[in-house]
């Protein structure tokens, strides 16, 4: 009886649908998707809706099996942690699970405790917070396990707040808890919440998220820090190869097939070699450095928005710049893209849908949400989901 519940969860086949958006920056962790382009998005469309949120947050929504999962934090010290489920159809709140922060909740005013984006394997959802509390729930909202990494390691905290979004690979949750004082990355058993491995990491505030490279048992996780990239085996935490030319601590790396675009010396493309234990540098361009948001993939091209709000489109394989245009910034979130369009929201809540041509980009429509938007959107077949401190939106094309 007691074990049956756990086994049900663990043995239950994954219910991942092709339209699901299971983690930060989508199915490939690079902001790109194979979903057809949606260009008629409007908050006025009949299937669009807006729902109130019980607390603040910068985390992005994730989409699993018809539900939206999202985090928020509330209370005078943001000490109440919310994990929320909404219906994708109508925006109704399905459940709101509340927990107490066990780690530090002090953050810079611009960010908040609900900064990291949730992740799912289709059976369970994982929520990590800036307090370094981690919760694993099933899709009904029942608790499977929890951890308090600052409870375990009291100096694991960043006075400005943490924002790294965890990833799941080979049934291991990889969580980067990197900061000035007690910096580490840990691999946690997705079934039990127990620590499998813990790697000491470079000391220094780090807001980047790990990304996955490759598939199946050969999949690796790229950890980014001010020192560069450490490519590790998620099952053991052992390093396969590293790149030590330094990297940004804000925008994250972007995987594109077997290439990893690293915000380092502008932008640097790295490629794992077939032996799995070494890499080669494909190209490097100091004109392609991203601002706060991470590079996004669209087919065989990638796009970056720099600190001056210039959007650059370039080829993944060569780094050749195809065109540039100015967008209305500034932005904190990363853009997302289909094969033909880019979806980008600035901090004022102005959404810009940009057609990605061969020689130029063109804004084809805008959406004004009238609220501060700091998150990265999630894309579904016919809609886009995003949140502010107060609201969650579905912006539908019909």
């Amino acid at each position, binding site marked *: *009886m*007691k*074990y049956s*519940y*756990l086994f049900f969860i663990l043995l239950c086949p994954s219910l991942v649908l092709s339209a699901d958006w299971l983690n930060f920056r989508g199915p490939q962790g690079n902001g790109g998707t194979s979903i057809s382009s949606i260009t008629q998005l409007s908050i006025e469309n009949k299937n669009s809706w807006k729902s109130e949120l019980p607390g603040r947050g910068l985390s992005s929504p994730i989409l699993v099996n018809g539900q939206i999962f999202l985090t928020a934090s509330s209370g*005078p010290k943001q000490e109440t942690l919310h994990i929320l489920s909404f219906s994708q159809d109508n925006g109704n709140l399905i459940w709101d*699970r*509340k*927990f*107490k922060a*066990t780690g530090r909740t*002090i*953050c*810079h005013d611009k960010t908040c405790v609900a900064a990291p984006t949730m992740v799912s394997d289709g059976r369970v959802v994982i929520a990590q917070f800036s307090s370094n*509390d981690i*919760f694993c729930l099933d899709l009904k909202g*029942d*608790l*499977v*396990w*929890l*951890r*308090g990494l600052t*409870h*375990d390691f*009291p*100096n694991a905290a*960043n*006075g*400005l707040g943490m924002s790294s979004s965890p990833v799941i690979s080979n049934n291991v949750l990889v969580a980067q808890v990197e*900061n*000035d*004082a007690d910096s580490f990355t840990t691999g*946690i*058993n997705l079934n*039990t*919440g*127990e*620590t499998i491995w813990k790697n000491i990491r470079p*000391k220094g*505030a780090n807001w980047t998220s790990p990304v996955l490279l490759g598939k199946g048992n050969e999949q690796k996780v790229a950890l980014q820090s001010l020192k560069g990239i450490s490519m590790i085996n998620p099952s053991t935490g052992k390093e396969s190869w590293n790149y030590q030319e330094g990297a940004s601590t804000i925008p994250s790396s972007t995987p594109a097939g077997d290439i990893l675009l690293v915000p380092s010396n502008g932008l640097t493309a790295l490629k794992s070699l077939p032996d799995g234990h070494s890499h080669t540098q494909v190209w490097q361009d100091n004109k392609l450095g991203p601002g706060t948001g991470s590079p996004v993939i669209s087919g065989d091209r990638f796009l970056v928005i720099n600190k001056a709000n210039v959007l650059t489109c370039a080829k993944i394989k060569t780094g050749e710049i195809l065109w540039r245009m100015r967008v209305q910034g500034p932005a904190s979130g990363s853009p997302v893209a289909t094969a033909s369009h880019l979806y980008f929201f600035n901090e004022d809540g102005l959404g810009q849908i940009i057609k990605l041509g061969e020689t130029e980009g063109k804004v084809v429509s805008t959406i004004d949400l009238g609220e501060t938007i700091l998150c990265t959107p999630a894309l579904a077949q016919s809609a886009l989901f995003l949140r502010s401190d107060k609201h969650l939106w579905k912006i539908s094309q019909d």
Partner: protein
Amino acid sequence: MNKKLFILSSIFLLLKLYSKSSTSSRELIQPLINIQSQGKGNKEAIEAWPEISQLPPSAIPELLSAMNHANNLGDNWIRAALNKICEQNIKKIPTQEIVNFLKDHSNQGDARHMAFQIIQSYQSLKAKKLIPTFIDDPAPVLRREAVEMVLDQARKTEKEEVKIKLYRKALQKAREVDQIKEASNQLEEAGQEINLTQLMGFLMNWHTIGPFDNTERKGFSIDYSPESNGDLNRKHEGVDGIISWKEFSSTDELGLLDINQQYGEMKEVCAYAQTTFNSKTEQPAHFRIGSKNAWKMWVNGKLLFARDEYHRGKTRIDQFIIEGKLQKGENQILLKICQNEQTQSWTKQWEFNFRITDPSGSAIHSSNLISK
């Protein structure tokens, strides 16, 4: 006779059943209390939680009571079970027993707050009536609710005299910084005199010694001689030769001690600050430090906490709250405050504030006002 025997037997059976059920509930909950750091005990908790979350609503007081014995992780496991039980039994929640639990100050503050949150979720009017009773509550999280109600009344009233009276009450009862600041700001705007330094109990008088080397931030980990000898008459070797302890006081209303004023704006250095705090009794205490620099804190020679982080945000009041205890009589407080190599304008500060409170957040004042 048979009837009496039947009644007695029934009572005995019921008591036995109750006892068995109660014992088994306690046993069932135990894995959530046993949860330890680093995922230890997770497997047992994972097994137990589904059954615990299906307990009848009559088990709510027992689960709240279990929170008294759980650490913060166990607290969250139990919280999740309580929320589920309440959701499934909205009309059967034993409100009066939960209120009784809430009113019993021998229960832990977080457990009592959870009891309050349950009442608030399902009987909001009853919860609202309870709030004023928290005005002197030992649990800061509950006391805050009552102070907020007073502040809200003050915000809304048009009558200046009533407003001042309400803000005065809020200031007297508040223990959290944002509420204290709001009440004191409003009173000062109304021309009232407020002594925040005294109210919040900032330690204003210290002795400092420095600078010591902190090149490449290595000084943070070096045990310089003041860490092992706190004699204020003893000289030590610093960056610039032999140095001695010097008096250092703050006149800032919120107790900010700007070390740059003592040594000039320096980089890659450390300084120590020491004071003596007289406590009338042995008592649990919260040592509350604010600093945007790396720091270490010792109380009576024991290192309580160390934080190796520089300039991640501003110096705040109660930025770090470290639990410890004061001994009766003199207590030596020693701080090490480090400055790093950064040169940006927002990294010039080399500063701290410090106060001591009881666990409810009430300032504890030293019986001596000037350090030795």
